[in-house]
């Protein structure tokens, strides 16, 4: 019924025919394309009179809307068929947003369903898009569970803005940690309207990174490259991995992506909103000294020394459980 695209109707007058045709399609006049195929002829005393013939066609958007409705059903059918075989505790709802489909999945165990860094949702999304493509549906579909993706997107946008502000201030490019394509897209889109920074990506796929660069400077000379300090003789702290000063105060942006909760360090404080007065001095309890054995050599771990070779422990026996795998993880400390 809703799939009829056009109808031909004849009636005594053009007007009557149009009304009849619109009724049959169930649409209003504004959403229809009306062609008059034959004008009515009144004839003489009923002889040679002809009815009016009109063709009423749904407008293009109308047709597209019908196709979309069918497409969304197909997407949902494929997704349901896959999920039924995957995990029958999942609940699915499908929604169209712009050009892509949003599939929200409610799971009793969202953490397990999403996987580490969304590994499992992404795998499922990839398989789903393959199955849809095989059915001739080349659409973008996004799998989400709860607000995982929207939360992540918010975090990424916040991070992008914060880093862009800094790049534009210090006028040096900044390389972000490696991100998957979808998340890089979020960064590029978040910064595309800014004139003070430019973004591009470098590297190969699993480690491709977004680089935020300062934009063209207006009247400002580009900042000179970092000075070569190899020849000066400033006193320098001895290298020790534990005592290394954090880069850029905290360095939360430099962390590898597998600790990504650290991105969400909250909104920045405005510059004026800082506590004034002297900084409270930190009181540190004295370190407990372990009495040294007489013959024990003093060993300082050197970062350049080859790491001690460890022998892999025996594979865990019995049924697999994630906790067991944690227990068997070999310690790096000797």
């Amino acid at each position, binding site marked *: 019924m809703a799939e009829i695209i056009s109808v031909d109707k004849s009636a005594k007058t053009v007007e009557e025919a149009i009304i009849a045709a619109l009724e049959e399609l169930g649409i209003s006049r504004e959403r229809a394309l009306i062609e008059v195929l034959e004008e009515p002829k009144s004839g003489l005393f009923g002889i040679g009179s002809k009815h009016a013939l009109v063709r009423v066609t749904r407008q293009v958007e109308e047709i597209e809307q019908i196709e979309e409705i069918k497409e969304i059903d197909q997407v949902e059918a494929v997704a349901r068929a*896959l999920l039924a075989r995957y995990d029958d505790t999942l609940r699915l709802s499908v929604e169209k947003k712009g050009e892509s489909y949003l599939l929200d999945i409610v799971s009793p165990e969202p953490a397990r*369903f999403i996987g580490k860094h969304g590994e499992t949702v992404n795998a499922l999304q990839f398989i789903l898009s393959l199955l849809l493509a095989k059915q001739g549906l080349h659409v973008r579909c996004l799998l989400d569970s709860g607000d995982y993706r929207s939360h992540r997107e918010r975090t990424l946008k916040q991070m992008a803005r914060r880093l862009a502000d800094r790049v534009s201030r210090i006028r040096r490019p900044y390389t972000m940690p490696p991100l998957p394509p979808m998340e890089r897209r979020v960064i590029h889109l978040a910064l595309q309207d800014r004139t003070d920074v430019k973004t591009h990506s470098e590297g190969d796929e699993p480690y491709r990174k977004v680089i935020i660069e300062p934009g063209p400077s207006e009247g400002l000379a580009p900042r000179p490259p970092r000075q070569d300090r190899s020849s000066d003789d400033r006193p320098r702290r001895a290298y020790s991995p534990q005592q290394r000063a954090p880069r850029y105060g905290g360095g939360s942006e430099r962390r590898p992506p597998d600790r990504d909760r650290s991105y969400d360090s909250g909104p920045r404080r405005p510059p004026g909103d800082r506590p004034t007065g002297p900084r409270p001095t930190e009181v540190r309890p004295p370190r407990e000294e372990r009495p040294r054995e007489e013959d024990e050599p003093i060993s300082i771990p050197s970062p350049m020394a080859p790491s001690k070779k460890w022998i892999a422990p025996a594979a865990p026996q019995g049924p697999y*459980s994630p906790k067991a795998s944690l227990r068997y993880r070999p310690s790096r400390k000797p």
Partner: protein
Amino acid sequence: MKELVEYIVKNLVDHPEQVEIVEAKDEQGNLVLQILAAREDVGKVIGKNGRVIKAIRTLLKNQAARNNILANVTIE
């Protein structure tokens, strides 16, 4: 478990009638699913840089962990 792999693979290839999934056990007694497919379909099951088979393994591992078994997929 087997149904999941079978469904995915059969809906991915050009010759679903030639797809066969064989259940087997490895030395440790873990479940191994072996996918048998037509020669020209093997590439489709594996995917560019192993993307497809990696995704299948991820899903399978996720389900297997829930049921306390280990599962692996091999292709022939």
